[in-house]
């Protein structure tokens, strides 16, 4: 569709490009690495006009594509940065407490877990799948933490058990999606119920809250000599790791490739199933660790911890410019979206908005982030729908089949 925005690795696209040599006029020109693609000026119609350098050195097509991609990424991300600033200004104007450093701490501490969970979700959505079970995995892990602690297990062993639990939870998702071939939507709706249900079975109506201060302070105290909560520090470290993996390793590039076109990725020799399984496993692991953080921060383990949090995680990722159809997005965008999200929630908190109803705002944010990127296409589709309706009115169309 949009070859200049399509972040396929050059070597990966070479295979598909040469296969499509028969129809260079369709706009797949920049992907060709044959000689005619290098000498002749590539068909530039769909791309943004500013970048049209002379033909000179090595591969202008590649350089142009990269620049075009950087530009398009920058555009969405600059937009996000502007919004982030606007949120801060809005918050500062509506409440005098917003810009205080203690509020900054509160703001970041309440969004730490969501932010961490958004990182593996970014990978999963870019690869063309979705994981709705993240909040339930968190809840299940939190419940298990509570149960094992009340049985006086040592904390280190509990954390290992949680990690195993997370890996297993992710593995179930991943295997059902890749090996059985089920849509991730259906699988993770199922595990959303299953994992939350297991949390319910584990703890029932009990609440475990006698965690020692050594652990609960992790949730509410900053890293020594800074004003950054532990969860945010973990998020920053993880964001760097995930960002490097996504943008600078073959694995990361193949995640884009399989999101853009699973078939092409498979034919290019990418181990689609294995990588997708790994993504779900990582997601499960990260979510179960986030469950420990969540439990320590609130100092309580209950079965419904973080219920409904999958909405926030998906909303952040899509707001960050990751395409719900897969194949597009960046960690930078997601990090910016985390900042916007945290700022917005905090501003709402300070304006006495009914906290239980923040779903309206987050849901609205989710809708906006899916609709804004293709607002232009919307209008024509609406017109098309109306035209289709008036076409339907003529009875001859139906009669043809009889």
């Amino acid at each position, binding site marked *: 569709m949009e070859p200049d925005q399509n972040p396929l690795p050059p070597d990966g696209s070479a295979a598909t490009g040469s296969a499509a040599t028969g129809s260079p006029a369709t706009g797949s020109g920049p992907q060709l690495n044959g000689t005619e693609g290098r000498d002749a000026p590539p068909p530039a119609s769909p791309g943004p006009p500013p970048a049209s350098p002379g033909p000179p050195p090595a591969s202008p097509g590649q350089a142009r594509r990269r620049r075009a991609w950087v530009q398009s990424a920058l555009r969405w991300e600059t937009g996000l940065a502007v919004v982030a600033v606007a949120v801060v200004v809005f918050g500062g104007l509506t409440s005098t407490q917003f810009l205080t450093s203690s509020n900054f701490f509160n703001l970041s501490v309440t969004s730490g877990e969501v932010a961490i969970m958004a990182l593996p979700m970014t990978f999963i959505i870019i690869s063309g799948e979705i994981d709705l079970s993240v909040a339930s995995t968190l809840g299940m892990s939190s419940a298990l933490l509570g149960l094992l602690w009340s049985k006086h297990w040592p904390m280190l062993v509990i954390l290992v058990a949680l990690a195993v639990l997370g890996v297993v939870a992710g593995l179930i998702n991943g295997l059902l999606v890749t090996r059985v071939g089920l849509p991730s939507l*259906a*699988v993770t709706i199922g595990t959303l119920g299953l994992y939350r249900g297991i949390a*319910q079975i584990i703890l029932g109506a009990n609440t475990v809250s006698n965690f020692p201060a050594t652990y609960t302070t992790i949730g509410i105290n900053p890293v020594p000599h800074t004003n950054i909560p532990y969860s945010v520090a973990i998020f920053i470290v993880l964001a760097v790791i995930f960002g490097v993996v996504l943008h600078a390793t073959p694995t990361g590039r193949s995640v884009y490739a399989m999101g853009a076109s699973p078939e092409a990725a498979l034919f290019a020799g990418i181990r689609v199933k294995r990588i997708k399984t790994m993504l779900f496993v990582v997601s499960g692991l990260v979510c179960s660790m986030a469950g420990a953080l969540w439990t320590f921060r609130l100092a309580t383990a209950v079965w419904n911890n973080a219920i409904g949090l999958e909405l926030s995680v998906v909303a952040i990722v899509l707001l960050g410019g990751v395409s719900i159809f897969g194949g597009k997005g960046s960690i930078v965008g997601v990090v910016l979206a985390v900042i916007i999200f945290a700022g917005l929630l905090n501003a709402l908190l300070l304006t006495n908005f009914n906290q239980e109803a923040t779903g309206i705002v*987050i849901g609205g944010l989710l809708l906006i982030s899916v609709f804004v990127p293709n607002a232009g296409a*919307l209008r024509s589709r609406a017109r098309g729908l109306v035209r289709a309706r008036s076409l339907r009115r003529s009875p001859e169309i139906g009669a043809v089949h009889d």
Partner: protein
Amino acid sequence: MSTALTERQNPSSAPAGTISRKLTERVFRIRESGIVAVLLVFVAVTASIQPRFIDQANIQFLLSNTTVYALLALGETMVVISRNVDLSVGSVLGLSAYVSTNLFGHHPGIPIPVVFLAGLGIGLACGIGNGLMVAIGRVPSLVVTLATLYIIRGIDILIVGGNEVVAQTLPNSFIDIPRANVLGVPYLAIVIAAVIGAGAYYLRSFRSGRELYAMGSNPEAARLAGVPVGKRIFTSFAISGGIAGLAGVLWAAQYQTIDSTAGTGYELTVISAVVVGGVAIFGGSGSAVGAAVGALLLSTIASALNVLGISPFWDQAIAGFLLLVAITLDRVISLKLTAALRQRSSGVGT
């Protein structure tokens, strides 16, 4: 009837079509009767442990309990068959339940049909919103309805505040709706069964109903064949919303205490019921009757847990587990089926 339909739609490949259709039909008859068998076995086992399970009061309670789920499952079936999903049904039910029955408190003596109309209207409005966004925005319905799930719930929370509708404000004739019965069978269950029958007939035999299946089995082919895909998607979401609105009023009549948590988490149960009842989550196959049986199975399980003294905390895990089992089984069956069809028509290709 159904073979006639096939032949009319693709007269050229009639023989191959009928063979595959026969096989498909047999498999799905197996699929639906399988659920019925599971249901019967389950009831028998539970009843042998706890005879109270099949006494009249419990069956009556079970049936009227199922009505809400079965209704929701009908709407969800239409959506799922066309390869979409509506996650917002639980929230629509909650909003409609509170707003419509709140009318009793504010306008004493308001006729009951008006309350039902109010519920229907609220549901339709929500469904139309979903439908417009999915049809025009061409955004996956999952994302849209995930957002509206929480948006509608949030609106509900804002409207309800800290209040609740309590049984005292509801007129007796309203509360009696789920309890009225003919020969021990709840009147409501009969009406709902008729509604589901009508829905099943519509899906099976009407042009627009068949088009939902066509969209589900291959959206692109359906579009090319001239199916007004956007319009059908819109309609299916509107119907699903409207049904959820009506179900909200029935829910209120049944439980009589309505706060802002009404219907929370119902989307999972309903989708499980639909899928367990044989509607393929990929779209393109399944029936409204199967979905209703699926709903009956799920609420029977919940009721049995209750009767057997097992904690209701198991409900959700079981619903989720059954969903996973059902989609896995469906997938395995359909792979086997495809292999069998390919063998039969080897040489015909694709």
